[in-house]
């Protein structure tokens, strides 16, 4: 089976999410009991909460590709203490998290091999979706040994999805390639992940 990826980026500089780690009901909606205990003991609770959130969102994107009826019930996506796996029922996904003071980026995959991924800042007034596609095309063209113009990112129509389109697909000179990809953006950042 083709390896699948999901990713999520969170801009920690967004003032609107600055205090969510102190909001009991929000935390209870997102975290399992075990995760809540870890959050309470975390040196930086804010970063830890959004690390868990990004990991769950990334894993949900993979789960949704595997199961059309997957729902985003955050507590059911359980992040391991070492932040290296996310479990959803019987499905265990490999997880990679990169976090610093300004952002968190999580990548979940069905394969052990590391996915290609990157995060970039959005230029002022640049549409996030265009910025994400540019980042993905540039990185994939380097990996594939071609030019960015050879790489196209398309989203097929998918009735019933949140915006009417399905997950992004990559075409190389017009032909679909066997690499799953995931795009995300939040605040000042765009990010992508691609299966290896």
């Amino acid at each position: 089976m083709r390896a699948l990826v999901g990713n999520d980026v969170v801009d920690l500089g967004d003032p609107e999410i600055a205090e969510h780690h102190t909001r009991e009901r929000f935390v209870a909606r997102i975290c399992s009991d075990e995760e809540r205990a870890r959050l309470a003991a975390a040196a930086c609770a804010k970063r830890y909460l959004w690390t868990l959130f990004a990991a769950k969102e990334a894993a949900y994107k993979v789960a949704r590709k595997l199961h059309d009826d997957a729902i985003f019930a955050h507590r059911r996506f359980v992040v391991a203490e070492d932040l290296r796996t996310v479990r959803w029922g019987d499905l265990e996904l490999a997880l990679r998290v990169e976090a610093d003071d300004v952002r968190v980026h999580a990548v979940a995959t069905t394969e052990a091999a590391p996915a290609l991924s990157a995060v970039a800042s959005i230029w002022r007034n640049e549409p996030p979706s265009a910025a994400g596609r540019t980042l993905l095309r540039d990185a994939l063209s380097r990996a594939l040994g071609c030019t960015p113009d050879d790489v196209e990112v398309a989203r097929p129509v998918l009735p019933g999805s949140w915006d009417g389109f399905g997950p992004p697909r990559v075409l190389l000179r017009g032909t679909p390639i066997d690499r799953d990809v995931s795009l995300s953006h939040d605040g000042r950042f765009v990010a992508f992940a691609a299966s290896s």
Partner: protein
Amino acid sequence: MDQKEVFDKVVAILKPFAKNPDALATVAMETSILKDLKVNSARLVDVVLEIEDNFGIEVKDEDADKVKTVGDAVNLILAKG
């Protein structure tokens, strides 16, 4: 509470979370909360909590996941009311 009252209250709840305030000017039952109003997934959780508080209902994960449009939220509230 009738549909119009619930609709107005839902729009008021969504207002501070909408990253695309222009879409609020033409908001309707079929307006997409994520695509049109550009409420992100984290803030959607805040919206669900606000709906619970304002309407005195419990919104289960399964119900929350089905809410794509303003009308979905209104109908969910009316169904639980």
